[in-house]
């Protein structure tokens, strides 16, 4: 899940001008296949930031920028279809969904702030994780618990198959190309589970280095952004039904925010199935983190801490509980008050779209490629091959498991 922000104590060195610098030897150790000298700004500040920097004027400034972008995106998504209704562009105007406006405006603001030298300073306010998680809890209130329960077994089977096969493929290929074990673990976890969130959990489990985490996170975003637009279009070209489309998007796009964006473009029911599938995959991160900790403790770092079962709970994404609770509350409420339910559903859906819009603006604001340029071609090749494998496997598995699934309304 976009899963993009991580707030940690920063450890990079800075020169008197405030530029980030690294030691060349350490960089070679960290990123196999990266012989080039380390450049300033190699550490992606949008990914690795300091938690203590919250509640500063820059935090509120960043938040304000996200809100401005969100209001503008909503305004455009509501009014462009009206403005173009009578002209030759009516089809195009009506077909552009709100995630497209939000991401495009986020990218535009990103460019503008970068030109003004403010983008990195304000980045602590770009809270993609918070916006997407709140939006998904609200989405839970629009999904009947019966839908959730009926989709969960297929989603769980798909999650286990996808994680096992994609992780194994990525780990194997990265090993063949001689990548460092820790970077292998980060890339394999990121591409097989839930993007940056998974990479963060894996980084803790295998004691990865900061630049490895920043690099894996950068790759996730680079690959996720085009997927948001291309995969819903491909699903339409292939004639997939909404349930299979949702399961495919949820099963192969890495970050939760990008899954939500692609699902929203594909349709309301596709978004619901995509969210259920993605959340099931997210929920398995705790199990994978413990297994990785065990592997590195017993096979790689003989002196490392041994894993504890409680880690599964620590790593469990708690907002999944909020999503399920919202679904239960809304189902009970709607069954008892069908008349008030229409107003309730309309309000919750609108607020859900508000939060998702803010998350999508944040994705655009956080987009950054500097850390990718430093690492050479081998990790990019591994991630690209794994992404294609993930795409094809998810298509097969979701077609098998969701071809006759019906989303209850």
């Amino acid at each position, binding site marked *: 899940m976009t899963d993009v922000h*991580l*707030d*940690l*104590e*920063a*450890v*990079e*060195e*800075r020169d008197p001008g405030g530029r980030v610098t*690294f*030691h060349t030897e*350490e*960089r070679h150790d*960290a990123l196999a296949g990266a012989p080039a000298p*380390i450049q300033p700004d190699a*550490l992606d500040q949008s990914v690795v930031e*300091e*938690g203590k*920097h919250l509640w500063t004027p820059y935090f509120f400034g960043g938040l304000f920028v996200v809100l401005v972008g969100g*209001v503008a995106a*909503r*305004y455009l998504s*509501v009014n462009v279809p009206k403005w173009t209704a009578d002209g030759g562009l009516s089809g195009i105007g009506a077909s552009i969904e709100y995630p497209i406006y939000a991401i495009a405006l986020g990218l535009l603001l990103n460019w503008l702030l970068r030109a003004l030298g403010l983008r990195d300073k304000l980045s602590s306010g770009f809270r993609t*994780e*918070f916006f997407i*998680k*709140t*939006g*998904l*809890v609200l989405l*839970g*209130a629009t999904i009947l618990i019966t839908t959730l329960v009926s989709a969960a077994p297929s989603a769980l089977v798909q999650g286990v198959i996808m994680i096992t096969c994609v992780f194994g493929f990525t780990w194997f290929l990265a090993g063949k190309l001689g990548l460092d074990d820790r970077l292998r673990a980060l890339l394999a976890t990121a591409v097989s589970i839930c993007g940056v969130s998974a990479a963060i959990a894996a*980084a*803790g*489990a295998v*004691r*990865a*280095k*900061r*630049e490895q*985490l920043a690099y894996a996170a950068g790759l996730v975003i680079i690959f996720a952004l085009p997927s948001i637009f291309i995969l819903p279009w491909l699903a339409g070209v292939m004639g997939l039904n909404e349930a299979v489309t949702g399961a495919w998007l949820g099963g192969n796009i890495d970050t939760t925010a990008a899954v939500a964006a692609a699902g929203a473009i594909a349709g309301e029911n596709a978004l619901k199935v995509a969210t259920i599938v993605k959340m099931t995959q997210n929920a398995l991160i705790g199990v994978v983190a413990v297994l990785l900790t065990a592997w590195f403790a017993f096979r790689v770092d003989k002196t490392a801490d041994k894993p504890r079962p409680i880690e599964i709970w*620590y790593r469990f994404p*708690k*907002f999944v*509980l*909020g999503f399920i*609770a*919202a679904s239960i*509350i*809304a189902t009970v*409420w709607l069954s008892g008050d069908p008349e*008030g339910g229409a*107003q*309730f559903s*309309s*309000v*919750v859906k*609108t*607020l859900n779209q*508000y939060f998702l819009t803010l998350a999508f603006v944040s994705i655009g604001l956080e987009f950054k490629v500097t850390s990718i340029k430093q690492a050479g071609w081998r990790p990019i090749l591994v991630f690209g091959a794994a992404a294609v494998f993930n795409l094809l496997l998810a298509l097969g598995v979701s077609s098998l498991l969701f071809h006759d699934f019906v989303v209850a309304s």
Partner: protein
Amino acid sequence: MSNHTAAGTPVPTEAARKFALSEDWVATIVGLAIVVLAMLGLITKGMLPL
């Protein structure tokens, strides 16, 4: 930000976990609070301009 250590340092998992947990819980609480307010009719369609 601290200015004294170098890249290559393992990610401090405790700091990451504490923040990730709080953001997860805050999102859950805010989301559920909105659901309850909408259920009680304290947030209405007319209050949402766009």
